């Protein structure tokens, strides 16, 4: 696609004449997505490419918009819980939790301690499951297929744990305003303990197989660097923000549930193999977070067994839920960042307005600035490292 070349002459630094053949080529405009293997769903990025290098990238979204917020205005509070499952379908428990907390705040409901501990357990377990997907699909984006199935092996166990708990494997609707659907079945906590022990061993495998792989490091270090200022400007949250070195985790900054009673670290990116805030840092923050989740899980199991008696999961909620006219906002730390629910109620049994702040949606906005100047393979690595779930971008 050469559009003509001419020889340009100019003086070089040493006073010598230098000739440069000025060959211009046209940029190529390509649709990456919505049907592309590595846009993690139906994201469409219109890219302009000069050879392998991107000169412009525009993300388009909205292919699976399902009007979740509008639906919330037309169904009652409990009926909306299943819809929350479906925005970030990889972390349905965390979505349930975020929605339940905002309704509880507005309706001033109290939750039994045992239910709160169990909520923390399912939230952290789901965080592990979600990060396992992030780990596996990131490996696939870089070109390694095997880590994906390694990740799915443990995720399978996580899902069967949830299946035993509430009967569903992906969309749980287990946490709802006022408490949880049912107490844990007998032996479930012991199996969860076993899961924690086994998972820590398997984590070492992931570390050897992918994290410390030379090619993987070469592909992800110094790629897609988000400086901390830029991360804050774009309103990034979750691992994308912490990967840039900003220590901000809602579980630590504004503790909800009993997160102030358990000890855990908040990992941040330090540029261990490259620049702070590169793809590897974001990836590694997720890996460490999985271990921290295991740590929280252990403490939750211990406290739950010690402080509470089985069966005591009822709070002070009445069967029909009416929320007095008020406004409330609650943000929870989802695997992908801050999931915020802003609820305006009008005293009826359904919300007047429910605004959802999705982490993937906000994190996605940084792509437009991050992608130009990188290569196509890097673009895939960057999109993967942001770890978006399109169900939640579009809602």
């Amino acid at each position, binding site marked *: 696609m050469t559009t003509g070349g001419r020889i340009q002459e100019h003086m070089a630094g040493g006073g010598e004449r230098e000739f440069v053949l000025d060959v211009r080529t046209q940029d190529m405009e390509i649709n990456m997505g919505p049907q592309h293997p*590595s846009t993690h769903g139906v994201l469409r990025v219109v890219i302009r490419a000069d050879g392998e290098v991107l000169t412009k990238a525009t993300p388009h979204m909205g292919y699976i918009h399902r009007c979740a917020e509008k639906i919330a205005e037309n169904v009652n509070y409990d009926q909306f819980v299943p819809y929350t499952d479906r925005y970030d379908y990889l972390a349905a428990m965390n979505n349930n939790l975020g929605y339940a907390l905002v309704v509880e705040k507005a309706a001033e409901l109290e939750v039994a301690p045992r239910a709160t501990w169990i909520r923390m357990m399912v939230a952290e377990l789901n965080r592990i499951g979600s990060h396992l997907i992030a780990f596996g699909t990131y490996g696939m984006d870089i070109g390694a297929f095997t880590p994906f199935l390694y990740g799915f092996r443990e995720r399978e166990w996580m899902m069967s744990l949830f299946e035993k708990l509430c009967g569903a494997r992906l969309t749980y609707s287990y946490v709802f305003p006022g408490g949880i659907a049912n107490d844990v079945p007998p032996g479930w906590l012991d199996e969860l303990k076993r899961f924690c022990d086994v998972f820590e061993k398997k984590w070492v495998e992931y570390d050897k197989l992918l994290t410390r792989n030379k090619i993987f490091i070469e592909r992800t270090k110094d790629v897609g660097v988000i400086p901390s200022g830029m991360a804050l400007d774009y309103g990034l949250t979750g691992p994308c923000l912490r990967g840039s070195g900003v220590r901000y985790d809602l579980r630590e900054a504004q503790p909800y549930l009993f997160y102030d009673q358990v000890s855990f670290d908040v990992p941040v990116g330090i540029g261990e193999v490259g620049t702070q805030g590169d793809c590897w840092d974001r990836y590694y923050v997720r890996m460490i977070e999985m271990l921290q989740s295991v740590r929280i899980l252990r403490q939750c199991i211990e406290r739950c067994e010690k402080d509470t008696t089985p069966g005591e999961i009822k709070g002070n909620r009445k069967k029909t839920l009416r929320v007095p006219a008020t406004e409330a906002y609650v943000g929870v730390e989802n695997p992908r960042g801050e999931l915020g629910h802003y609820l305006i109620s009008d005293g009826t049994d359904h919300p007047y307005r429910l605004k959802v702040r999705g982490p993937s949606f906000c994190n996605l906005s940084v792509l437009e600035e991050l992608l130009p100047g990188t290569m196509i393979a890097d673009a*895939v690595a960057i999109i993967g490292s942001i770890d978006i779930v399109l169900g939640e971008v579009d809602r």
Partner: protein
Amino acid sequence: MSIASVWTVLAVQASGAGAGEGAGTGATGILKGLAAYGFWGYLVAALLGFAILFGIASALPILFTWAERRVSGRMQQRWGPNRVGPFGLIQALADGIKLMFKEDIIPAKADKLLFMVAPGIVLAGMLSAFALIPLSDSAVVVDTPLGVYLITALLSLEVIGVIMAGWASNNKWSLFGAMREAAQMVSYEIPFGLCILLAVVSYGTLSLREMSLAQAGGFLNVGNWLIFHNPLFALPAALIFFIAALANTKRAPFDLPEAESELVSGFHTEYSGLRFSFFFLEEYASMFVISVILIAMYLGGWNLPFVPGSAMTGSFGAELLAVLSMLFKAFVLVFVMIWIRWTLPRIRIDQVMSLCYKYLTPIAFVCLIGTCWWELST
């Protein structure tokens, strides 16, 4: 595929002309005998040779796809195909039949002629290369003095087909894949060629068959294998050849032309049915061909440890042992390729280039010069 037949005719002529150099056994002998009956004899010999070649060249990929899927299944804690036939061996055949009956879609805006021809060219180069590889002293269809030189040329034919496919598909992802393939193939031909030169310098011949013969004998009958005979230079060269071979066959971590996560399917995105299976066949066949070249040059050919070289040539049984030994070694190398594919992530295009030009090519040069010195001083 007609190229393969033409080559076979040439080959029969060539070997017919040089019939003095030892009576062939098996298929080669029959072909040579037929060639004595003039034009029709040549024609029958060519068709027969083509049929045999095509049979081998399609049977091996079936075996290799099965191996790839079973081995990867093993590595990923799943089963892999295990339903069709014993251990799922016939699965690839079933898939082939499925591909045959699928609709052959040609995109409306594609360049029809190039689109249809491209898979044929890709496969033809590969099949012709099959005619030139020696599995034992006499199990070689074409034993030309050009040998490995001709094989390199035929293997490079593939890149033309791939570029044609990428361009004719009228799909930007396909074009990207084709351009990557072109850049990668042209670059890796250099270390690839240098490593071949090293073997040529060591043996003083271009014929893979003669190279294999020359590696008989020595300590435990492995002492004359090139990597042991000249370990300082030939061992790194063998490794470089293997890496370049991975790049030439588009195997991971060099599978950029068909990088699934980046380019959808690369140059064969628009292909379906039988034409797609040609590309597929070519990849697995070239794995085998390149493994055999590596073995013939560096890993002792068909020679086995503890077995004297004289026991591998001459009688039918000895030749059979040689063929089996060659196949075994090739299968080991193919297994390593599969192993690498399911372990490593993919390299980026600029890293592919810098690996080639900054590391492989200079090291290969040093090895080549070192080997020249070695051969002169010993």
